[in-house]
Each structure stands twice: as structure tokens, then as C-alpha cells.
């Protein structure tokens, strides 16, 4: 069930980035897709258990979440965030000359 929700998020994001005409919306849609991917990592990390994987006092019989995907996805979140920031800044720059931010119009005016 959770897995289906995660895949739905990824698909919604992907189709949003294809079908939306506005550049800013495309970028937001891509962020939705990346949220889906991150959620999938978290989901896979919790296959074995949900307890935070910090070695404190060992609780017998408790199942810990897998720390590796969680650690790895932290990097991906930071990277995704910085790429998002870069893209939004370029959209701000582009918006000065293309206030509607219609992708087809921008594409038309920047074609050789």
C-alpha cells in the first residue's frame, strides 16, 4: 500500500514535469518526483523495522531500520535541494524577459 503511494507520487511528479507548460511548475513537479524517490529509500530502509538506528541502550527484540539507505538518501536530498535552488534562480533570471514562463515560448526564442 505504502509502496503504491510512493510510486504514485513518482509518476505524478514525472507526468507533471512532462505535461505542465509553465517552467516553474515543471520544476516543482520534478521536486515532487524527487520526494517520491526519497520516500522510497525511507520505505526500503524500514523493511526490517522502524526504530531509529542509533546505538543507545540496546532494546532487546526491537527491530531497527536499515541505516545505509537513510544515510545515502541524506546526500541525495542535499544534492536535490541545491539543484532545485539553481534551477529556480535561473527561472528568476529568465522571468525577466519571459514573464509568462511558457516553456514553448522560451524554447522558440532561444533556438538557433
Amino acid at each position: 500500500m505504502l509502496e503504491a503511494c510512493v510510486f504514485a507520487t513518482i509518476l505524478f511528479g514525472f507526468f507533471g514535469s512532462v505535461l505542465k507548460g509553465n517552467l516553474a511548475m515543471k520544476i516543482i513537479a520534478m521536486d515532487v518526483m524527487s520526494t517520491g524517490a526519497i520516500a522510497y529509500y525511507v520505505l526500503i530502509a524500514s523493511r526490517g523495522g522502524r526504530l531509529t538506528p542509533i546505538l543507545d541502550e540496546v532494546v532487546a527484540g526491537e527491530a531497527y531500520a536499515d541505516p545505509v539507505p537513510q544515510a545515502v538518501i541524506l546526500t541525495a536530498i542535499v544534492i536535490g535541494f541545491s539543484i532545485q535552488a539553481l534551477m529556480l534562480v535561473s527561472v528568476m533570471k529568465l522571468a525577466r524577459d519571459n514573464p509568462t514562463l511558457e516553456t514553448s515560448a522560451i524554447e522558440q526564442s532561444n533556438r538557433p
Partner: protein
Amino acid sequence: MMDLNNLTITWLALPLLVGFGIYLFPRVDRPFATLAALGSIVYGGSAIARAEPLTLTLLNNFGVSLLVDSLSGFFILTNGFVTAAVILYCWGSDRKTFFYTQLLVLHGSINAIFLCTDLMSVYVALEVISIAAFSLIAYPRSDRAIWIALRYLFVSNTAMLFYLIGAVLVYKANTSFYFEGIQNAPPEAIALILLGLLVKGGVFISGLWLPLTHGEAATPVSAMLSGVVVKAGLFPLVRCALLVPDLDPLIRLLGVATALLGVSYAVLERDSKRLLAYSTISQVGFVLAAPPVAGFYALSHGLAKAALFLGVGSLPGRDLRTLRTLKLAPWLGGAIAIAALSICGAPPLGGFGAKTLTLDTLLPWQVIPLNVAAVGTVIALSKLIFLPWNPYFAALKLPFQGAEDASIQASHSGDLGADAAVLSPAAGSTVAAATSAPAPGVGLWLALPFLLGGLAIANGFYPQAYGLSSFLKLAVTLGIGWGIYGLLPRSLPLQLPRTVENLDHLIGAMSLGLVILFWMVMP
């Protein structure tokens, strides 16, 4: 005496340290940047010379794993040569330290790709490459540059999201991110990972973002993108094909398809920089077609393509129809012709050995399509070899060519303002560009001999190529290619539509590619 492991890690960190260091000391940016690139040349050369591969596992089981062998050596050597040449080319320009910092960050992360053997390190390095390449493309800050850079980042980030999902599926099956785990991974994981790498490497239909990006970026940036950045996507593919034998036929098939797709576009192209970009797509196919010898081909292609981009970028204009009517400087035209000949596979250049080695390592079913692609490469690059830089080529008039050239020449010799109606709008804009194009600076004088010298040295890596059969094969390929080039009308009436290069179509094609890949990797 430092041991090899520490040396490798120091060398890996060096470009990043120097890159951020020169930002603090802008006065010494270019010398230090060149030194960092030369360091990669030395390291790459020593990796090729060392017979046994070096394996490194940092931290523990879940840590980063690195592998240095002669394959990575060749790719590192390419990276070092192209980066050094690009820095030399920019020496006389007024580019700020920011440019060199980004260039070195790009250089360092590409080096990292060539050592990594686990999916996560490759992911991180590929994303850093995207960001650094974005900054380099957007460096002029014009609207067009920002749009091209944004488009590049958008396409590559979407592809990397698919890759990320594939990577976690591999982890689920193996509880590790190592490449070897792909063997046990479900087919959807393989399809997702391949899609991400194919888009980054500019392979087959997922590489159609490449012509616009490489064609519109500034000259040194396109040299960098075409020379090494696409190889960052290819290297993991080649490594997977070697580590996971099940993937080998698929990668070879994709290579052949890419080579054919790239040349068919390149033969029909009229714009010199886009022609080079399409030629990159087809050469990427040659690299993938024979994974065991991919390194040498990547080296010779990287050097020649960087030289071509730097040379063609200094020509007064981009439309080949206009260029054919101008008189070019012989040394510039000659350098372009030498680099183009190397890609066609002519001796005594690296391209000859690389092409012979690749064509000798093919599987039987690959031989015919790849030889067709080789002939197509000759046809496409003849457009650059026979530019009128030497008086004989200028006088050379081939059938079908006379009338059209004469009309363009007439409009050139006459008053431009009065004759503007004769020229098509496209030709008019190229003439305007020709007057504003900067004269080739001192940097080009440094960079071109450096790259062409590298090509000549690379020739020594495979001396066995010099045999009667390879000379015969080359003569037949060149003969057929030049024959067809001579017979074809100079400007084909057929122009392939560029609709597929729209952003929506590029992203949409990814879903299509995913379905096709999934269907292909299904056991």
C-alpha cells in the same frame, strides 16, 4: 614514499582543493589549474603503465569502493588532456576565476567517476558534474545560455532520479551498492539505472538533448562537454558491461544503434557545431560497441573532438554553406582537418589505432553496421576536412555544387546591404555573426598543438594496428566515404525536424526509453 592508496586519494582530492584554493588566490588561477590537470595526465599515464589493477575499499563493507586499471587510466588521461587544453585555450580570455574553479570541480568529479565501482558514488559524482557543467554553460549569463544550462540540468536531474530509484532496488536485492550486485537485481532496477546512464552519456534517442547543448555552449565549454563529460556517463556503462557479462550484449547493441543514429543526423547537418555534436553521439556508439577496448577509443575521440570544437569555434561563422565560400587561415583549417581525419581513423594519429582496435574486437553481427557507421563518419566529417583552407580545396568544384556556391559568393562579393534579399534569413544571420566573431587568440595556438600532439602520442598505444589489412580497410572506408561526399549535393534539401529536441519530448522519451529497456532486459 607514499603508498599507492594514499597517492590515489590525494590525487582524487587535488582538483577540488586547487579549484576552491584558487578562488582565494585569483592571481594564480590559470597556472595552478593547469598543474592540477597535468597531475591527472601523469596519474592516468601511470595507471595505464601499471599492469595489475588497484582496488581500494574505503571505510568498510558499506564504504566507497574504487578500482584503478588501464581502462580508468585511459579515461583519466582523456580528462587531463582535454581540461589542460581548455585552460590553455582560455588563457588569453577575460574569464574570471569562477570559471576555472567550476572547471576544476568538473574535472575532479569526472576523475572520481573513472574510479568508482559503486552506484552511490557514481550518483554523487554525476550530480556534481551536472551542477558544475550547469555553471560553465550559464557562465555568459545571457538568456540563451541560462536556458540551455537549465534545460541540461533538468534533463539530467530527471534521468538521475530514475537512476536513484534503480540504485535502491539493487540495494534491496544485495544490501550493497556495488556494481556486481546488478547481476542479482530485478530487471526494472537494471532498466532504471541504464536509463540514467544512457541519458548522461548521450546514447541513442536519450542522447538527443546533446546537439543543442553542445552546439550552443561557449567554445571551450563545448570542447569540455563533448570531450569528457559524456564519457562520465559512458564509463559506468562500460564498467558494468565488463563486470556483469549479462549486460554486455545489450550495451554492444545500444552502441551500434547509437553509432548509426548519430551519423545519419550528422550527414544531414549544415551547422558546423551541431555536426560535431551529432558526431559525438555516433562516436559514443563506437566506444560502447566494444567495451573491452573502450578506453583507447574514448581517449582518441576526446582529444580529437576537443580540438575540433576549439578549432571550429574560432572559424568566422557556423553555417557550412557560408564557410565554404570564405578563405580560411591554412594553419587553422589544417588543424581542423587533422583532428577530423583522426576521427575518421587515419594514421599516424590516435584515431587509426583506436578504430582498428575497436573494429577488431567486434562480435560478428556488429561488423557490418559499424563499418557502415565508419563510412558515414567519413562522409559527415569530410564537410570539415574539405573546407577551403588550402588553395586546392578552394578551387575544387564538385558536381551539383557550382550554382549554389556561386550565388552565395556573388552576394558576398557584392554589397551586403543590397544583396540581403538574395540570402536566406539564416545565411544573413551567419554573416552578421561572422563580423562579430572574435579573432582566434593566443590560447588556440597553445591548445591545438597540445591536443594534436596528444593524438600523435596516443598513436603509440597500439602499434599492432599497422598492418596491410587495416590500411586496406581504411582505404576502402575513406574511398567510399569521399566518393559519396563528392556525389552528394552540398546542401541536402532534406532537413531532419528538430521537434524531438523540445524539452517535453526529451523528458517524454525517457518514459519510452524506460519501457524499451525494461523489455530488453527481461530475462
